[in-house]
């Protein structure tokens, strides 16, 4: 497969995402497939952020494990990422400000220092001085040449991006892009080979945007939210498009209000949705049960991020399964569904609205930061505009001769007829207390055991019936594989790719992705897993929550677990490494690696010594007086490269044992 991965690294505020967007959109319009991932921190300016844009001739399903071209926006980024660039790749930066020590790159990597003021001289002459952030556009121009992409398409992207700012700004930006492109053409060698540009234009979008679009298409009329990463971009899309799509969007005072508003809207008859992250969902849980007993349709999106508590606000995880599964006291049917990629998020959201209405219950969509926030190209056909909106059993009129309207009539399906308030002769109370068929409370005065039993059974019948509507999970890949990998949610795409890599290494693997967590297809899953030779779960959490859940539903335990819980998403090479390790019966070595020691060094310097030094040479050692092996990290001056200090970091614990300055105090 022909593909190229471009990395853009810098600090928050350096304008990485805009540059990444231009590149990604250009490639998207050329008909290539793009998948981007932004590794960022909860910081508005500064820090270190890092965007990877993977571009392929065929569909790419993750940001992958490679790096071919690095655009470094500051010195820090050169030092941190230059080693990761593949042989024959390239590093590109503003040569007026930054430099790259050749010893920091692999063999064959082109070091492309762009003499920025010289390259932009003509543009400056024509348009006046440019802002530093615009220099990114010059570098993206160079990347277009290095990646062998079509320049004119990029110019059209910029034209669209700056349309609202007028001709002059468009010309300025296209001029800068062209300058970078031309400079690279005369001075550098392209990194990528020839592409076949199908020029099929595909939307370049994120899971959250797709969820929002799908909700609008499915007839959502009310959306409430309280800002919380990584769910906030649903709110932003909704707010931006509210008038166009006819949705009332309400930013509420807290998540308690958010879900209670959504349920209120649902009870009044509007299709409603809300979204939040794990912490916000914790506040919502009581109301989830309210929707359960009131049999009120409502859709709630839970976008997982690193926990517990505020945890890792800008990092991904799949560790809220039990929170969502166990949300609210008591027992009641609900839908819990985990879409597996951006495209799937569309159909899943539409389906959630239909299931919520058909079975009159809360539908909970579980996403995660990776799925919700990373942008990728998705085939247009995924976005079906012909959605048949079926509100389920809604009584439009009621004749009193038929007796009293029974909101919670005991039916075979478990679903009772609903009315939209405002319909004559159907007044009733939706209550959080247990009630009879006519919605009269049976809670305290007289508990009416048989009625309670019947109501529980009525609601409970929805579970089996709903299960029949939902497709059972299917094994992907060869039936006779050596190992079956079990996943849920966004890990699907990564594992799909890992399976190809495993095959190249002679390991035949197949894949079982569980999309419907509740209700659960226990029979089918048991059948599949009992035939598997070896079973390994792959989850972005510490305790293998899905594997535990599957065991509780099927009695089948995994033979091993691949877990990641450092905040970064699962990556194909990571899966391959650990699957092979588990198959060979080895323990997981959790020692701090040299790369991680360098990161710890950076972190230490950032918190204690501003940005004057950087980690240099790192050597392994056995240290006297410390009960573990250590990394000895030299810290050198950023500009002179001279050794200024030393740090000792524990290999087992990651502890910083010592920091020794080698410069006499007076010389500092």
């Amino acid at each position: 497969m022909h593909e190229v991965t471009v990395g853009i690294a810098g600090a928050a505020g350096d304008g990485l995402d805009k540059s990444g967007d231009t590149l990604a959109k250009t490639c998207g319009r050329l008909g290539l497939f793009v998948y981007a991932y932004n590794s960022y921190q909860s910081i508005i300016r500064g820090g270190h952020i890092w965007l990877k844009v993977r571009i392929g001739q065929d569909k790419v399903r993750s940001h992958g494990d490679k790096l071919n071209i690095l655009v470094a926006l500051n010195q820090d980024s050169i030092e941190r990422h230059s080693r990761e660039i593949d042989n024959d790749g390239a590093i590109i930066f503003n040569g007026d400000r930054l430099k790259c020590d050749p010893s920091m790159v692999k063999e064959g990597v082109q070091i492309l220092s762009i003499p920025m003021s010289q390259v932009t001289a003509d543009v400056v002459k024509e348009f006046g001085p440019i802002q530093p952030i615009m220099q990114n556009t010059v570098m993206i121009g160079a990347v277009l040449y290095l990646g062998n992409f079509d320049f004119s398409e990029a110019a059209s992207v910029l034209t669209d991006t700056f349309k609202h700012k007028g001709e002059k700004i468009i010309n300025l930006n296209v001029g800068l892009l062209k300058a970078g492109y031309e400079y690279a053409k005369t001075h550098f060698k392209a990194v990528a080979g020839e592409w076949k540009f199908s020029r099929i234009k595909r939307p370049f979008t994120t899971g959250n945007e797709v969820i929002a679009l799908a909700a609008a298409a499915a007839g959502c009329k009310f959306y409430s939210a309280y800002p919380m990463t990584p769910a906030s971009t649903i709110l932003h899309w909704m707010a931006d498009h509210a008038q166009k799509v006819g949705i009332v969007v309400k930013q509420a005072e807290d998540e308690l209000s958010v879900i209670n508003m959504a349920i209120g809207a649902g009870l009044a008859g509007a299709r409603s949705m809300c979204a939040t992250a794990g912490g916000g969902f914790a506040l919502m849980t009581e109301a989830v049960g309210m929707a359960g007993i009131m049999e009120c349709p409502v859709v709630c999106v839970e976008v997982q991020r690193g926990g517990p508590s505020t945890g890792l606000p800008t990092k991904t995880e799949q560790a809220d399964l039990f929170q969502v599964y166990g949300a609210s006291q008591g027992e009641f049917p609900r839908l819990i569904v985990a879409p597996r990629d951006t495209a799937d998020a569309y159909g899943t959201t539409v389906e959630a609205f239909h299931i919520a209405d058909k079975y009159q219950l809360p539908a909970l969509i579980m996403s995660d930061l990776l799925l919700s926030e990373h942008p990728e190209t998705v085939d247009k056909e995924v976005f079906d505009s012909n959605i048949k909106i079926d509100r389920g059993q809604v009584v439009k009129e009621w004749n009193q001769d038929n007796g009293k309207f029974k909101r919670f009539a005991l039916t075979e399906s478990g679903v009772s007829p609903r009315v939209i308030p405002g319909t004559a002769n159907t007044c009733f109370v939706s209550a959080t207390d247990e009630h009879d068929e006519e919605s009269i409370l049976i809670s305290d005065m007289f508990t009416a055991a048989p009625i309670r039993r019947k109501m529980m059974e009525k609601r409970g019948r929805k579970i089996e019936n709903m299960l029949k509507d939902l497709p059972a999970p299917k094994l992907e890949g060869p039936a006779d594989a050596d190992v079956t990998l079990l996943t849920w949610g966004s890990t699907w795409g990564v594992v799909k790719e890992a399976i190809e890599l495993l095959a190249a290494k002679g390991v035949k693997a197949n894949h079982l992705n569980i999309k419907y967590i509740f209700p659960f297809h226990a029979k089918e899953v048991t059948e599949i897993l009992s035939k598997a030779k070896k079973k390994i779960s792959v989850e972005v959490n510490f305790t293998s929550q899905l594997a535990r859940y599957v065991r509780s539903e099927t009695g089948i335990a995994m033979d091993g677990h691949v877990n990641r819980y450092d905040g970064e998403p699962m990556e194909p090479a990571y899966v391959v490494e650990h699957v092979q390790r588990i198959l060979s019966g080895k323990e997981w070595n959790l020692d701090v690696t040299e790369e991680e020691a360098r990161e710890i060094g950076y972190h230490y310097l950032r918190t204690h010594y501003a940005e004057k030094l950087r980690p240099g040479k790192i050597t392994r050692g056995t240290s006297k007086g410390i009960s573990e092996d250590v990394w000895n990290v030299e810290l050198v001056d950023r500009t002179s490269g001279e050794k200024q200090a030393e740090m000792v970091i524990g290999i087992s614990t990651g502890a910083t044992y010592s920091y020794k300055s080698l410069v006499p105090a007076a010389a500092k």
Partner: protein
Amino acid sequence: MATVVELPVDLFKGPVDPDWCPGCGDFGVLKSVQMAAAANGVTPENLLVVSGIGCSSNLPGFIHAYGIHSLHGRSVAVATGAHLANTDLKVVITGGDGDGYGIGIGHFIHAMRRNLDVTYVVMDNQIYGLTTGQTSPTTTLGHRTKSTPGGNVEIPLNPLALAITCGATYVARGFSGEQKQLADLIAGGIAHKGFALIDVFSPCVTYNKVNTYPWFKERVYKLEDQNWDPTDEKKSLDKSFEWGDKIPLGVLYKADQPTYEDSEPIFKKGALVKQPLGLDKQIFNELIEEMI
């Protein structure tokens, strides 16, 4: 303006009889809500009564109308969603002081800031009734309750002052011992365009042995008997602090302000629940184009 056709109060008789303690103030409030709806010509199927949890919050079960008997403290949030989904319904929120001023205070404040067109009737018995007599946010200083055997040490909240300063545009106080006036106050709230708070002294005869009917009877007087002008915000705010030997009943404050709904252009096309669902083809295609 359309003429209001008064309806018989009987129309609002609920499917079950109230199970409040005999003598509970909430009986009077229920009757007043029914009278107010009838007086305003709101038919049962266009009335939505939303409550939280508490003795007082059981009210929707005792009235013939649509009801949502929601969670403790969440009535205002639920009512907000229901009202925005169908602005054609008349939404009346009913609950207790614990429900509204304790656990639900955040929603209450923000709903007032929005000046939503809803009516909120708080049955303020200055105690938690349903949980058998603990202190509430309006319990007077020094009052001994099950949870404050040494006497309440927290300053009671002043719901009227709070409402005036938070943006409510109809702020009134009633007393369930003054049923006719109370019905008028609630009817005024329903007719008012904007957020109406009616704080009602609704004695808990079982657990509050301090703020009893006689205690109130001795102290309350009616603002309308004094030609009170409710349109001066500062004077109304001052009045809201009157407490002790003389306690005013009536509309303390009233203002004509744009509602939240006025600022939402989507409502120009009618109530949300009556609008078509989904996207038309052209808008859909535009949304897809945006992503390319």
